[in-house]
């Protein structure tokens, strides 16, 4: 019977549909390119894996483009080209990051343990193993906290002034100086505090001296990021509040800041993360110490970047191990701050939902 045979209907040619590469095509092309890259690289006797990878990347981009032009037409092929370039760039950017992390973890995990985190270098000779990073971790936390205490309020208030009140020459001047400050190299900030605070005013080396230099570096970052966040708050909200007869200062406090708080905190945390790894000012002003000094206002302290630098300078195996472990601690600290910032931003973001 004719009803049992399925009619073979060719779908009507439509202007809205076109031939497409299957979903797995990019992945398959990538796989092929990698295999070919390794083959060509090894065959041509190239020793560097980076060269193999680059060959593979070029092959992938080229092959997918050609394939797509054949099957899907030129507009789609351009789209594929752009997408594959973005992917290749993404991978190029991520590889150093991941390998750095992987390398640091591998090297650092060797001596990183509870003992390392809770002991100082007091009485440990540089060439012997043992000792720890406690005094540096403490120093870094105190110095960064002090620097944040100084620069966060000043930076926030400056940004509020610039966005909400600043008109005319004063605002222009402030913006200009913030721009100039952004460009100050950290060593210059360190030298400035050194000549002013330690040489001229004759204070001793201390964590606080380091904090001052760090806050010089941090302040413009805080101002800039806060400014951007405040500018994102729609004017309509300010007007709605002002039209209710709410004074301007209260509008800023109750409407503008709460709306922007997620972004402001994120910017603040990123600025903190940024100065946590600063070495130059700490080297000049905190001086470094092998023992625990809990008072940041008096006497030399240590800090993580400084610790890494000095251990590496020692130039022996146990010191190298300590340097790597401290580097791992530093990375973990900065990462924790970033994650915290993201958490706060998500938690504080205005929720449009139900």
């Amino acid at each position, binding site marked *: 019977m004719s009803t049992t045979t399925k009619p073979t209907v060719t779908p009507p040619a439509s202007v809205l549909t076109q031939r497409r590469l299957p979903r797995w095509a990019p992945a398959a092309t990538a796989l092929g390119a990698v295999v070919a890259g390794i083959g060509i690289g090894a065959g041509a006797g190239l020793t560097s894996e980076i060269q193999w990878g680059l060959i593979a990347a070029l092959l992938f981009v080229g092959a997918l483009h050609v394939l797509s032009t054949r099957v899907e037409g030129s507009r789609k092929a351009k789209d594929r080209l752009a997408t594959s370039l973005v992917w290749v760039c993404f991978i190029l950017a991520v590889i150093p990051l991941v390998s750095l992390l992987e390398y640091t973890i591998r090297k650092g995990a060797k001596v990183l343990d509870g003992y390392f985190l809770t002991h100082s270098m007091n009485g440990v000779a540089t060439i012997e193993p043992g000792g720890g990073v406690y005094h540096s971790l403490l120093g870094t936390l105190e110095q960064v906290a002090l620097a944040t205490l100084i620069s966060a309020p000043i930076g926030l208030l400056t940004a509020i002034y610039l966005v909400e009140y600043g008109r005319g020459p004063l605002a222009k001047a402030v913006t200009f100086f913030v721009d100039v400050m952004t460009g100050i190299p950290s060593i210059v900030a360190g030298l400035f505090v050194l000549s002013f605070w330690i040489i001229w005013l004759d204070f001793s080396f201390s964590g606080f001296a380091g904090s001052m230099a760090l806050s010089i570096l941090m302040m413009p970052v805080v101002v800039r990021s806060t400014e951007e966040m405040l500018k994102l708050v729609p004017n309509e*909200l300010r*007007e709605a509040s002002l039209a209710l*007869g709410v004074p301007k200062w209260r509008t800023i406090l109750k409407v503008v800041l*709460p*709306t922007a708080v997620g972004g402001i905190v994120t910017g603040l945390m990123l600025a903190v993360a940024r100065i946590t790894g600063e070495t130059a000012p700490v080297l000049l002003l905190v001086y470094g110490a092998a023992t625990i000094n809990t008072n940041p206002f008096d006497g030399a302290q240590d800090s993580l970047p400084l610790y890494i630098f000095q251990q590496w300078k020692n130039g022996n195996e146990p010191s190298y191990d300590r340097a790597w472990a401290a580097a791992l601690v530093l990375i973990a600290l900065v990462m924790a701050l970033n994650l915290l910032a993201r958490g706060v931003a998500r938690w504080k973001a205005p929720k449009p*939902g139900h």
Partner: protein
Amino acid sequence: MAKRIDVSGLTAYYGKTKAIEDISMTVEPRSVTAFIGPSGCGKSTFLRTLNRMHEVIPHATVSGTVLLDDENLYGPDVDPVAVRRTIGMVFQRPNPFPTMSIYDNVAAGLKLNGIRRRGELDALVEKSLRSANLWNEVKDRLNKPGAGLSGGQQQRLCIARAIAVEPEVLLMDEPCSALDPISTLAIEDLISELKERFTIVIVTHNMQQAARVSDRTAFFNLAAVGQPGRLIEIDATERIFSNPTVQATEDYISGRFG
């Protein structure tokens, strides 16, 4: 409560550009005055000069006088914040505070006027939401964000927020332009109720709306693009819509404009 507004010789600038020129009119208490006119003729600008919101925009200036029951709003010692508490405003686009719940949105202005006792606040929030015909829709979710409401509900929330502080005058800049006919009707009913207590000024592009809700209508126009807007005439709404004195008004209302 409601007060009368007397404007004379009012001119407003944005920087060096003159947006409206030499406007004089009287807004009667306990009535609805509608502003109509083509886009860009300065209705919003004029409305904002009535509660000193114009000067919030950088470089925007005003000259002339606005008397609120004989007190000049632009007098030397007048506090714009106090003016805005007396003359409330509803904007064209609903703008609830995104970080606040429905309840806090309505209470925002009240808390400022020193009302902090929970019981009193609760009562006033409920009263305002009822006045804005929103209570039944939101009474079960007062603590949810105001931004989660529909556009029409958000606009009524903004009206509730504005009337919660019991202003003498309520300025509304195209309050229904983003709303469906049912919400529009709800707000028009609301306006008719509110005019018992407040002096209301409403900007609208909807002729039927002006005819339905307003007692008096003012027609604004500009001589040419780039020229400042002017008040052409203001009169009882029936007169404006049946027998205006100026030809341009009739052309505009009947759609034979430009």
